[in-house]
């Protein structure tokens, strides 16, 4: 097991190098490059610009620049915001709790609801419930999140007035748990239901695959009760591969969160990303792109290790 973990960690190294390289290239792609922010300042003379370039090391050969930049990244130095001058890490950290709250609750909704519908769908295959659930999941995957969010706002915030139309808490009001909860309901359900579609599809096909195996027929033939076969033989084997999905979904989770945060004016990292794009704050943009990508890499790493640990059938090495 330890060998597998180390090997899997080593495999992630080229990925991290590739990611840092992609980030560096992207920064060069930004209009005007890293000096754009100074070029906008009319009081800057040509000599000032050259001096800043020298201080920032931008007059050095490109591979030296990359190595210095990557070394800084490895130490967790994400640079300073072009707009406010504050450290990028600090700016991102402020927004993480809101996004974590939204993603966590959405994930919880998706896993519970998705697994239940997927399992029931598979067990009662070709039933009315199965058709409704599979069609519903396909609809869930096809409806754009931002539009679904707007519909939720039209119906539940505009028409019924059950939930507020956006934000994380009522402005100026003292902290109350109910207030926070009622603000969370809209965005978390939108993001959660969207993810539910994927989970139920995976759960269904995973259960169906196991149901067709010989050992399930054997268990039935032994005269075991249907319940025992389902819980002890089918689900235990069918749900393990879904651990991998938990890791794979991180990438979509971030994208979905960005859109949902925009629709519901939720002050998380997704909003921060869009705001930074609007202000051309490239340092924050790249910092966020790298931090989210690293989270995706870490997520799939953890999922793979968890999968290997949970499934004794996997041969390691």
């Amino acid at each position, binding site marked *: 097991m330890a060998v597998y973990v180390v090997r899997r960690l080593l495999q992630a190294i080229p990925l991290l190098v590739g990611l840092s390289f992609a980030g560096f290239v*992207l920064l060069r792609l930004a209009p005007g490059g890293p000096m754009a922010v100074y070029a906008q300042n009319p009081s800057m003379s040509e000599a000032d610009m050259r001096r800043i370039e020298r201080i920032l090391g931008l007059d050095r050969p490109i591979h030296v620049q990359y190595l210095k930049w990557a070394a800084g990244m490895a130490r967790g130095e994400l640079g300073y915001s072009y707009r406010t001058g504050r450290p990028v890490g600090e700016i991102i950290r402020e927004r993480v709790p809101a996004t974590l709250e939204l993603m966590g609750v959405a994930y919880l909704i998706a896993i519970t609801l998705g697994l239940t519908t997927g399992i029931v769908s598979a067990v009662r295959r070709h039933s009315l419930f199965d058709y409704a659930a599979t*069609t519903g999941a*396909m609809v869930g995957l*096809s409806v*754009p999140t*931002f*539009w679904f969010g*707007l519909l939720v706002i*039209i119906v539940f915030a505009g028409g019924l007035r059950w939930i507020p139309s956006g934000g994380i808490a009522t402005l100026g009001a003292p902290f109350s748990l109910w207030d926070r909860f009622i603000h969370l309901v809209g965005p978390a359900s939108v993001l959660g239901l969207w993810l539910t579609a994927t989970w139920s599809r995976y759960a269904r096909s995973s259960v169906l695959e196991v149901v067709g195996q010989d050992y399930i027929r054997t268990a039935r033939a032994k005269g075991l009760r249907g319940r025992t076969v389902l819980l002890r033989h089918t689900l235990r084997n069918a749900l393990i591969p879904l651990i991998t999905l938990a890791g794979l979904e991180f990438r979509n989770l971030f994208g979905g969160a960005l859109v949902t945060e925009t629709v519901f004016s939720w002050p998380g990292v997704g909003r921060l990303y869009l705001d930074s794009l609007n202000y051309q704050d490239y340092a924050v943009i790249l910092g966020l792109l790298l931090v989210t*990508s690293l989270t995706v890499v870490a997520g799939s790493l953890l999922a793979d290790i968890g999968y290997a640990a949970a499934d004794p059938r996997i041969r390691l090495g």
Partner: protein
Amino acid sequence: MLDRSIVWRRFTRNRLASAGAVVVLILVALAALAPWVAPRDPLYIDMDHKFARPGEAGFVLGADELGRDVLSRLLHAGRVSLAVGLVTAVIAALVGSVLGAVAGFYGGAADTLIMRVVDVLLSMPTIFLLLALSAFLKPTMLTITLIIGLNSWMSVARMVRGQVLSLKEQEFVLAARAAGAGARRLIVRQLMPNAVAPVLVAATLTVATAILLESSLSYLGYGIQPPTASWGNMLNNAQTYVLYAPWVAVYPGAMISLTVLSFNFAGDGLRDALDPRLGP
């Protein structure tokens, strides 16, 4: 490869898939005929009728914040959204097939390099990356199509690579090689024909995801730029008046959902119809 008539029979027997294909055809026809079918000029601004309700003053589906006809804009936006989706799928299928075949056939350094690029792209959150690229490269219809296409080929590449790897040591390939076929001929004539079916399925499903991505980008303001209408950017400002003019937001989203759903159903049906393991 399966017999065509069997594939056709299996596909048409699947009601959702057939419905999806029919809807796709209707949408493509409407988009192609938009200039002749649309009742008004989609760009004509008519401030006297801003936020006209559906059915009011001849605006079948209402008017938007500038008094432009929502129905005409929907029809014209369909051209943009469908074109981006279809071209993206072609790019993804081509790039994915070529890179996947090269990686699988040659192995070694080429394989390592291509698959590492796939890994890197698959670990960046798609929307984050697309937003940055679009902001840096000036969003036009061409750049939007290219950046979505160049972020959609990875699953095709993985699949084609797997297919090529599993087939390249088989006897029919070895026979062709012994008969003196070169690398390119082996890939194009012997190996790729076996990957056509899955690539076709993946391409159909890629149209769906590409339309979703384009609409999200346009909704966020980094996709197709106004005044050109796309289904996504018609929702661009909808947030501010969604509560008193909901029709401006409801119809474009419904079109995106219908289109994406149709492509998804058609793609799923195609996959089942082309699956040689299932019965006739």
